[in-house]
C-alpha cells in the first residue's frame, strides 16, 4: 500500500512567554503513515497537538525537527498543494465577499482560468448544500454555513487528499450527517481523507484507521476494529414474549432488566456464545428483538489510554490558556 502521507519524528516546540521564553513542546516525535484511499481519524483531547500536526502538514508552521511528506513530496511543495484540500478549524473567510466570489478567488489561486472558476464554485456550493446562499456576503453566514463553505473551498480542485480540521464543528445533526456522507463519497472516489476530531462517534462511523494523540504524543494508532476488539465485553439481548421465569431458567447468570410488558433486556457474557440461549428462548415462545455485541466504545478505549499516558485536563488547559 502506498502512503499518501507520512511523518517522521515530527516535533514542534513553541517558545512561550515574552521575558524568559520557555519551550513548550506541542508535538513530540510524531511518526505515522496514512495510506492512500483511507479515511484516517486523528483523535485526541483539546490541546493534544492535532491542529498543530495539521498545520505542520500544511506548512503554516515550521517543524522544530523531523520531516513530513505528502504524496511522496516534502510538505510545502506547490505541486502537492495543487492536489490537496484543507479545511482549517473554525474557518473564517472574507466578510465582504460572497460565497461565490470567495470560491472564484480561491479557484484563481489554484490556477483555473476565469471561465472555469465560476463553474466550479457553483458546483461545489451545490454539493455542500448552500447553492441558494451563494450570492450572500459571507458576513451574513452562520457558523454552520461557513463550515460548509470551508468544505467547499477545500474541494475546489478535486483533491487526491483532503485534510479536515474538526469538520463537524458548528454543525447541527443534519449537517453532521451530510458531512459524514460527503466523507464517505470522497472515500468512494478514491480520495484520502485525514480529519481530526474530538468527537469519537464520528471516527467510529467513518475511519478505517485512527491515531490518538494526547499531550503532544502519539499514544495509539492503527486499525480501529483491532483497537476495539480487545475490549469486546459481551452481548446485549432484547427479547419479548416470554416471562421472567423462562429467562431465569434459560440464562440463570444473565442480568435481566424488564423494559416493558413481556419485554426484557439481558446482558450476556462473551462466553458461552449465545446461540443455545437463543434457541431455548425461541422454543419457549419468545421472539428475539435484537442481539448486539457489547464492545468497549472508542470512548472507553480513549479515556483509558489517555489516563494511562498520564495526561489529564491540567495539561490541556495550560495549552488553551496560552493560545
Amino acid at each position, binding site marked *: 500500500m502506498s502512503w499518501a502521507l507520512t511523518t517522521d519524528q515530527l516535533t514542534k516546540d*513553541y517558545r512561550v512567554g515574552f521575558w524568559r521564553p520557555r519551550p513548550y513542546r506541542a508535538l513530540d516525535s510524531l511518526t505515522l503513515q496514512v495510506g492512500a484511499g483511507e479515511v484516517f481519524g486523528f483523535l485526541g483531547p483539546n490541546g493534544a497537538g492535532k491542529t498543530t500536526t495539521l*498545520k505542520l502538514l*500544511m*506548512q*503554516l*508552521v*515550521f517543524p522544530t525537527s523531523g520531516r513530513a511528506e505528502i504524496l511522496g513530496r516534502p510538505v510545502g511543495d*506547490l*505541486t502537492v*498543494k*495543487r492536489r*490537496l*484540500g*484543507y*479545511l*482549517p478549524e*473554525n*474557518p*473564517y*473567510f*472574507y466578510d*465582504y*465577499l460572497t460565497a461565490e*466570489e470567495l470560491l472564484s*478567488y*480561491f479557484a*484563481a*489561486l*489554484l*490556477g483555473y482560468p476565469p471561465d472555469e472558476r465560476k463553474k466550479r464554485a457553483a458546483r461545489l456550493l451545490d454539493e455542500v448544500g448552500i447553492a441558494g446562499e451563494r450570492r450572500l456576503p459571507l458576513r451574513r453566514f452562520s457558523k454552520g454555513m461557513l463550515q460548509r463553505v*470551508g468544505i467547499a*473551498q*477545500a474541494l475546489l480542485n478535486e483533491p487526491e487528499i483532503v485534510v479536515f480540521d474538526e469538520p463537524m464543528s458548528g454543525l447541527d445533526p443534519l449537517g453532521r450527517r451530510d458531512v459524514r456522507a460527503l466523507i464517505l463519497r470522497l472515500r468512494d472516489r478514491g480520495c484520502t481523507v485525514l480529519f481530526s476530531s474530538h468527537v469519537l462517534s464520528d471516527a467510529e462511523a467513518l475511519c478505517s484507521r485512527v491515531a490518538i494523540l494526547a499531550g503532544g504524543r502519539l499514544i495509539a494508532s492503527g486499525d480501529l476494529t483491532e483497537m476495539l476488539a480487545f475490549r469486546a465485553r459481551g452481548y446485549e439481548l432484547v427479547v419479548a414474549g416470554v416471562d421472567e421465569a423462562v429467562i431465569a431458567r434459560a440464562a440463570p447468570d444473565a442480568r435481566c432488566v424488564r423494559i416493558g410488558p413481556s419485554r426484557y433486556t439481558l446482558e450476556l457474557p462473551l462466553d458461552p456464545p449465545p446461540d443455545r440461549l437463543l434457541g431455548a428462548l425461541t422454543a419457549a415462545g419468545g421472539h428475539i428483538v435484537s442481539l448486539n455485541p457489547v464492545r468497549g466504545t472508542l470512548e472507553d478505549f480513549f479515556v483509558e489510554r489517555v489516563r494511562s499516558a498520564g495526561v489529564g485536563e491540567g495539561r490541556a488547559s495550560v495549552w488553551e490558556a496560552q*493560545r
Partner: protein
Amino acid sequence: MKATAAIAVNVFRESVRDKVLYNLVLFAILLIGASYLIGQLTAGQDVKIIKDLGLTATRVFGLFIAVFIGIGLVSKEVERRSVYSLLAKPIHRYHVVLGKFAGLALTLLVNVAVMGVALYAVLAYMGWNVDADVQRAWGAPALDPAIGKAVALIFVELLLTTAIALFFSTFSTPILSAAFTFGLFIVGHFSADLRNFDQVLDSPGAVFLARGLYWVLPNLAQFDVTEQVVHGQPVPAGYVAIAVAYAALYIAMLLVIATAVFSRRDFK
C-alpha cells in the same frame, strides 16, 4: 504572477467595499467649496491656493488610506485566521506580500488619479472663469501640466508609505504599525534637518549618527514639489526619474524584508 494579481484584485475589492473611495466625495466637496469661498475672499491668489489645497489634500487623504489599510493588510488576515486557507493554496508566501502591496497600490492609484482629474477640472473652471489680465499675474497657468508631475510624485510617495505600513504589518500589531508608519512619515519629511545637524552639533559621534540616519531613513521630502509647481518653477524630468528610482529601490528593500519575515512566521 496570476496569484499575485488575484490577491491584488481582492485587496482592491475589499477597499472598495469598505467604502474607502468615498473619501473622494469629501475631497471634491472640499475643493469645490474652497474654490468658491476663496473666489469671494482673495484677489488673484486663487489659483495658487487651490493648487496648494488640492495637492496637499491628495497627499493627506492618500496618506490616511495608505496607513490605515496598509497596517491591516497582513495583520488582519493573520488575526482573523483567513490566512490559513489562503496559504493552503498552491502559492508562495511572497505572492501574498506582493499581492497585498499591489492591491493597495491599485487602490491608491485610482484614488490619486481621480483626485488629479478633479483638481484639473476645478482649475479648468477657474481658468475659464477668471479674466485674462488677472491670469497673467499668476505664477503658473491654471492648467499647468507640471501639476501632473506633482500628482505623480505624490503617488510615488504614497507607494513608499504603503510599503512601510505593509512592512510593519508583517510582524507588528495594527496600533504599533500605525504609530511607526506615521512616525516615519514625519521623520521622512524632516530628513533635511537631520542632514544639517552637522552645522549645529559639536560632537562628531552625534553628527555621524545623524548623517547615518539621514541616509538610511526614507527621504520623503523630495517627493513634495508643490512649492515649485505652484510658483511655476520647473520640475525637470531627470529629477522625477531619480526620485522614482529612489522610491523603487527603497520599496524593494522593504518588500524583501517583509517577505522574509512573512515567510518564516509560524501561524499558530
